[in-house]
């Protein structure tokens, strides 16, 4: 009896795990198989034509690329600065614990709330309008917690003795940070930056009211322009278009490009991280 329960229980655990993996693989296989049908040079490099029923998604690819890069350009300096402060400078006191609490809570803020925040602060109060800049700034703040967490983890992985050595040689705290702590932490910080890019590329709700456009046949020329984005384009094609069935193949294609982009970034981050871990372990 005891054996039977144990067997049943353990098979349940395996089954649950297998089910989750099957969902992931099934989802990927479905999108890949359906999306592949429209994939081609034209789909990737041409703008949508004939009311988005034909043509490609190039403006959406370009828009997502631009807004993601802009996002990381904002959040990386701020996030790495915060991570350096937390790991190298901040004394352990109530104020520092407050910062950590704020970071944990920021990572739980619903994405649509970020959108509301962006509308009030960037679009209206700062007068930036619905633009690439407003969307990039909103996403920049959204990705901040991820950048800080990844960077701080990377900085803390640098052994204490390295810092002590630099300080003993007469370096100031900032010199020590800059010359001996930051360089070995760079791959970890890079991981955070890549994950930030991937998150920014996949978010829809925060850019919904801050800068994304339904249809624009060109690539934004300045930070004040609106832009098309892959996730929003997928949303439009699958729910808002006047003939949803006709554009279904294009929607699959868009989903495939988006998933492909996000997964490539994540795999890249994963590769950088595992390389870094191996190097740190061999250094010990």
């Amino acid at each position, binding site marked *: 009896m005891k054996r039977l329960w144990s067997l049943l229980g353990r098979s349940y655990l395996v*089954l649950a795990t297998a089910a989750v993996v099957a969902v992931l693989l099934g989802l990927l296989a479905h999108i890949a198989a359906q999306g592949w049908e429209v994939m081609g040079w034209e789909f990737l490099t041409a703008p949508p034509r004939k009311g988005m029923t034909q043509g490609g998604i190039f403006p959406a690819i370009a828009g997502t690329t631009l807004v993601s890069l802009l996002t990381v350009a904002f959040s990386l300096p701020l996030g790495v*600065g915060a991570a350096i402060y937390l790991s190298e400078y901040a004394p352990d006191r109530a104020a520092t614990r407050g910062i950590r609490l704020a970071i944990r809570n920021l990572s*739980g803020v619903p994405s*649509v709330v970020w959108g509301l925040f962006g509308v*009030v602060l960037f679009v209206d109060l700062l007068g930036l309008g619905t633009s690439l800049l407003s969307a990039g700034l909103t996403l920049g703040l959204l990705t901040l917690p991820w950048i800080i967490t990844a960077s701080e983890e990377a900085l803390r992985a640098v052994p204490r003795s390295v810092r002590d050595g630099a300080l003993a040689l007469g370096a100031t705290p900032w010199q020590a940070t800059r010359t001996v702590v930051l360089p070995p932490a760079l791959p970890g910080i890079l991981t955070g930056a890549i994950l930030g890019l991937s998150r920014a590329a996949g978010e829809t709700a925060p850019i919904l*009211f801050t800068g994304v456009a339904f249809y624009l046949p060109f690539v934004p020329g300045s930070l004040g322009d609106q832009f098309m984005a892959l*996730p929003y384009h*997928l949303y439009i094609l*699958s729910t808002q278009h006047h003939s949803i069935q006709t554009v279904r193949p294009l929607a699959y294609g868009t989903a495939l490009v988006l998933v492909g982009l996000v997964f490539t970034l*994540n795999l890249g981050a994963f590769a950088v991280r595992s390389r870094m871990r191996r190097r740190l372990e061999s250094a010990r």
Partner: protein
Amino acid sequence: MDVPPTRTAADASLANRRPRWGERLVELALAGCGYASVLVLGGIFALLLWQGAQAFREVPLREFLLSVRWDPTSPVEAGYGLWAMVASTALVTLGSMAVVVPVGLGVAAYLSEFASPRARELLKPAIEMLAAVPSVVVGFIGIVVVGPWIARTFGLPNGLNALNGSLLLAVMALPTAVSLSEDALRSVPREYRLASLALGANPWETLLKVTIPAAAPGLLAAMMLAMGRAIGETMTVLMACGNAPAFPDGLLSAVRTMTATIAIELGEVPHGTAHYHALFAVGFALFAISFGVNWAADRVLRRFQGGRR
């Protein structure tokens, strides 16, 4: 008896070696980056409160908090009741948790207690990958795969309803639940398990009667954080739930959550109207709910870790 610290020449030379203005400036700038997070969180709170509060110049607070009818564009009488969408959010979230808790716990237990290191090394990135799938893609799957399946199974005209949203949200919330539950299980000291095994329990009994109870607060926090994610999800529920702004009537009815309502309506209302401000009030309520869930999870985790040491 206090001896005044003697200053040696070396001290003096170290202190006077060079003015430390640059150092101070750098530290201040870094501290500024650090406190930016607090500022942003406070900013979200303040801006949503400020914008949302303006709705109550026209909308009675009583109506907002107690009424079920949300119909701001009605030509007869605009309704600004919060309850239908709170109930929708709760229904979809609890529906997803009914899947997330048993499955998430199962996967976490397998990964932490039974999987070989090799299997772990493959499975953990796979779960992380699931977390990386953009929510709009999950919503798309809800439309093209899960929806038609629900429609066929239950004989409905379409499958865009609360059940669809719950299933998709489960997929979205699972990675959080799994990775945090696994952390909680792994933080149970090895000695507990060894003691249980030495007393003759098999690994399954050890998991059920020793490891899971010992990790219970951490598991609870993990599930709460996963629930926080489900509450705040926007695109998935927007695309899969059918968006009927009425009080939900079971899992097979079309519902519109708080997040979906904001996403649908904010783009269409003129800035500065009562409707616009009411959407910010909804946003504030959503922010408060998810903040409360995260905060409670934090407390549970904190107490747990505090008690261990």
